[in-house]
């Protein structure tokens, strides 16, 4: 098998006495949509933060396309083709949608130490921004301040921002969080399109969405990967049923 796009090896991260990431190893092949699921507190966000560079692991390694990125700062990983969306929407609220996306394109189009020319008149950046906005279906909202957009629209802008950097790998941290039913369906459709173009690591609570989208699923419980495989295998896996879906049994039977 060829070198995986993302390889995580024996990653460990502790918070005091708690092991939030416990010897996690996983591979994401190029072109794959790899979902990470797990109950609340399983350490999904901790894991993602180590992939994006917002948190340093205590041991283990992360490599992207064969290159060790374990201790690279976030902005350098981004330059290597790793883009992320935030679980809690994190945008420039006092900028327009187009500005938000154009800045992401700008980060990957030459130096930003240019002091004189009007950046909003750079055709290349504006076109890239509009293309990305169009991709998520928000081209008509390009000139609206993000603070005036709805929650659902902001989730879409998050995606457009990530896309504008032309990433090799997209890390999506709960893109459906807080979306209504229709919005969620729209997002699933959009991700189905995007996965043809870019490899994706998806952290998500919405189980129907995960099983509809993923090529492979890794299940995280108490910081450990207890199972990894295609959706059908995960559905059948006894450990997963017990550890993950089991919680819901407890809830439904005794709640």
């Amino acid at each position, binding site marked *: 098998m060829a070198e995986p796009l993302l390889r995580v090896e024996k990653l460990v991260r502790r918070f005091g006495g708690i092991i939030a990431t416990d010897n996690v190893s996983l591979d994401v092949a190029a072109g794959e949509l790899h979902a990470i699921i797990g109950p609340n507190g399983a350490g999904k966000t901790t894991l993602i933060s180590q992939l994006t560079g917002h948190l340093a692991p205590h041991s283990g390694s992360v490599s992207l396309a064969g290159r060790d990125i374990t201790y690279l*700062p976030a*902005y350098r990983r981004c330059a290597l083709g790793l883009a992320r969306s*935030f679980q809690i929407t994190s945008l420039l609220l006092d*900028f327009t949608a187009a500005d938000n996306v154009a800045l992401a394109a*700008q*980060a990957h189009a030459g130096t930003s130490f240019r*002091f004189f*020319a009007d*950046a909003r008149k750079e055709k290349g950046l504006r076109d890239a921004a509009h293309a990305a906005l169009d991709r998520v279906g928000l081209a008509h909202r390009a000139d609206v301040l993000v603070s005036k957009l709805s929650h659902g629209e902001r989730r879409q802008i998050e995606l457009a921002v990530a896309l504008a950097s032309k990433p090799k790998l997209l890390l999506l941290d709960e893109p459906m969080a807080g979306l209504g039913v229709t919005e969620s369906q729209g997002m699933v459709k959009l991700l189905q399109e995007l996965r043809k173009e870019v490899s994706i690591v998806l952290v998500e609570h919405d189980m129907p969405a995960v099983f509809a989208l993923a090529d492979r699923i890794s299940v995280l419980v108490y910081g450990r990967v207890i199972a990894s495989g295609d959706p059908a295998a995960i559905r059948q896996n006894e450990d997963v049923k017990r550890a993950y879906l089991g919680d819901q049994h407890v809830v439904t039977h005794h709640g």
Partner: protein
Amino acid sequence: MKSLSVSKAVTAVMLAGLVLLPLYSHLSGNIFILTLLTRIVILALAAASLNLIMGFGGLMSFGHAAYLGIGGYAVGMLAQEGVGSGWIQFPVALAASAVYALVIGALSLRTRGVYFIMITLAFAQMAYYVASGLARYGGDDGLTVYKRSDFSGLIDLSNRTQFYYLCLACLLGVIFLIWRIVNSRFGLVVQGLRSNEQRMQAIGFPAKRYQLVCFVISGTMCGLAGALLANNTDFVSPAVMYWTRSGDLMVMVILGGMGTLFGPVMGAVVFLLLEEFLSQITEYWALIMGPLLLLVVLFGRGGIMGMLGRVGRG
């Protein structure tokens, strides 16, 4: 669009005043107006430079008066040592300010928020005490500049009117530069960092180096104001670097409207005119000024520029 036009109209009137009043003063021989306006324009330049880092960059530098002193002392010390040429004095003033900003910025930008405010303040106070200790250059008492910067006959700084228009040209030039900068690639990154630093890091911008460059540009511009100020008063002393002066500059920026091009100019005009006229009425003028500023800060979000915008809309 209407909201824009009200603040634009007021800005235009203010600028027309800054351009035309000195002519009146020149013709009528009323020197007082010219002296006051020169001071206003120079401090407006300092406030505009502070606005670049504070209003657009979102970094509360509480030590901007240090650059006034550094620019001023560069002129004063060179003059004392017999170097009277403005062609040397001004570049040295700018370079010294830039170097100081580079060092202070590199250290201060490791911190954020209140710590950034305190550390920039602490460095400015250090600069103040260093200046007080310069025995050769007057120490506490300050340094008289016996001859204004000499620009080899091109412009005579001893001529009040010419000097005023030089200051005004510097102010407008700096505002033009700031206008270009804030709309450039660099300016968008700096403003993006003000808005959401984590997001900017995530899309690939290393925050600190952009903020440091912005800090240096801002400090250099303020150094220019310092060099002009020393020429205006024919004198430079540690007092120009004292923390209350940094506070005055901050008040001008906030009063006029942070993050707007002409807000700091508006703030400087209003602040210094109020100070001038209130201090003629009573020696307790600060008792009136204080509450006035409080009212603007409490009820006039966005400063004078913000209020003008709302008047237009209302």
